[in-house]
């Protein structure tokens, strides 16, 4: 590839590479600018937020964080705890139920398999709005409204078919000889699943964990519908009632809580980047 090129061409190549990088950096900066500006603004007094479009801090002000934290009753810590409970519950539910279903679809020969698999794929496309009304009626009759159950229990029933599909794809890539060998040694399916497939599935499980984390943390629609008591609010519902409640809106404290709410997403992104990219390319997530 790198045979000696005549001078002007090499020069032009380098110049265009430089222009390309400059353009990409600029575009990246423009894209991230609003978020950076929000972080900086969360450390500014309100009147300065309305004056300064720049990113330079004249003075560091942390009062916005204290103010935002205590602006609602209960304080913001409660919402973080609630969100954490919901997220952890959903992650465990998805990991357990989706991996079980995926094992069956990828490794077992059972009657009507293709048909069930087709139905499973079909449910990925089903908008939540189509089922939310009867689901709400069901859960309200079970007296589950204002608990975390309507958010978590469905995950234990493998309703996120997207992850089943992702795991099926992954298991199909594992060599069959491994479970055949185990089978000859007298292992039944539960043991093959637990001892052989599951440990090998770690990357797929990691992808599922990261996506479930981010989607559940961000989810607003179902949390808004099921959690109406302020004690039960999760972070997104609290943020939104923050906007609603503060008539003389303080952007500083609002931004401070926005930043707090985005930190877990950002961390999940940093830790799980590899898995996020893999998950997206194999199955085309959001």
């Amino acid at each position, binding site marked *: 590839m790198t045979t000696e090129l005549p001078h002007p061409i090499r020069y032009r190549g380098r110049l265009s590479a430089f222009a390309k990088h400059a353009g990409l950096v600029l575009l*990246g900066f423009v894209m991230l600018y609003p978020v950076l500006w929000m972080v900086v603004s969360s450390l500014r007094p309100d009147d300065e937020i309305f004056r300064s479009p720049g990113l330079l801090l004249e003075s560091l002000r942390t009062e916005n964080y204290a103010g935002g934290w205590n602006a609602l009753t209960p304080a913001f810590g409660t919402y973080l705890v609630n969100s954490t409970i919901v997220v952890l519950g959903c992650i465990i539910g998805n990991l357990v139920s989706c991996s079980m279903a995926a094992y069956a679809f990828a490794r077992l020969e*059972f009657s009507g398999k293709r048909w069930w698999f087709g139905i499973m794929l079909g449910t990925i496309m089903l908008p939540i709005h189509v089922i*939310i*009304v009867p689901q709400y009626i069901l859960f309200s009759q079970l007296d589950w409204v204002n608990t975390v159950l309507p958010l978590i229990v469905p995950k234990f029933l493998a309703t996120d078919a997207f992850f089943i599909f992702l795991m099926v794809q992954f298991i199909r890539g594992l060599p069959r000889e491994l479970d055949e060998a185990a089978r000859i040694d007298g292992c039944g399916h539960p043991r093959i699943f637990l001892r052989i497939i599951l440990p090998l599935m770690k990357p797929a499980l990691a992808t599922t964990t990261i996506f479930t984390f981010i989607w559940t943390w961000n989810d607003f629609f179902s949390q808004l519908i099921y959690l109406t008591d302020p004690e039960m609010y999760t972070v997104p519902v609290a943020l*939104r009632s923050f906007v609603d409640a503060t008539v003389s809106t303080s952007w500083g404290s609002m931004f401070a809580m926005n930043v707090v709410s985005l930190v877990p997403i950002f961390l999940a992104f940093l830790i799980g980047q590899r898995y996020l990219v893999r998950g997206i390319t194999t199955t085309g997530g959001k």
Partner: protein
Amino acid sequence: MSALDELRRLRRDSTTDRKRDNKAAFWFLLPWFAGLVIITLGPVAASFGLGFTEYNLIQPPEFIGLDNFTRVFSDERLHNALGVTFTYVLVSVPLQLAFALGVAMLLDRGLRGLAFYRSAFYLPSLLGSSVAIAVLWTQIFGADGLVNRVLGFFGIEGKGWISDPDTALSTLIVLNVWTFGAPMIIFLAGLRQIPGVYYEAAAIDGVRGWSRFRHITLPLLSPIIFFNLVLQIIHAFQSFTQAFVVSNGTGGPSDSTMFYTLYLYQQGFSRFDMGYAAALAWFLLLIIGAFTAINFWAAKYWVFYDD
């Protein structure tokens, strides 16, 4: 043991295997199957039934025949919501995909620092659906917001973008375009699968620039473009959070950000008109289904499969 005996033994094994697999499959699929019946298909059927009733959660549902479904045709606010949603889908999805493809092509092929750029462009997709970003957006496009201050810097007078019915929807379109990172990653993976020999052959024939894109990249990438298109359209139809937060749940100003899902939410969960909400949900399913079907039909004419 003769070969025939061996064969018999194997066959017997495979039938017991099958039985064993059937039994195992039952247990492994039990959670999924319960979910399918209780959480998914049951409610789908129930919402169809509910569509024929008037139900406010307190009084028992009352059968009213086709009233909810015929109401769909005379409900002016719903027609407006459909218009808003279609505009949003048909403008923001192509723009978003064009950005995604453009940037993916810039990032393709031996560019240094790919991982860094990919992250920078992808991060907004992860944040984009959050309430926090929607709150940020109300500030950015507010009367005293960031956009107007940047414009003021250049001596341009701005306005309250979000409080003006003419521009409110555009700010949400911008938000959706901003999240082009996820389809971009899919495009990147697709571009990487185009064999370099095509480009080399084209270079020898002196084909480059636009016609190289038009005659090599575009056809070979068309299955991926199609995939992204179907996915993003379905996704855009279901947008809710941004419009809800930006308009404080009203869909305003003057219903200009009244997404279909927001209207459904209002009917079902503010007015507790569960029957009508269920009918609306079915109507939404039909619309999304129709769009997807049209997409698949049109794909015959522009999606090119190599094999």
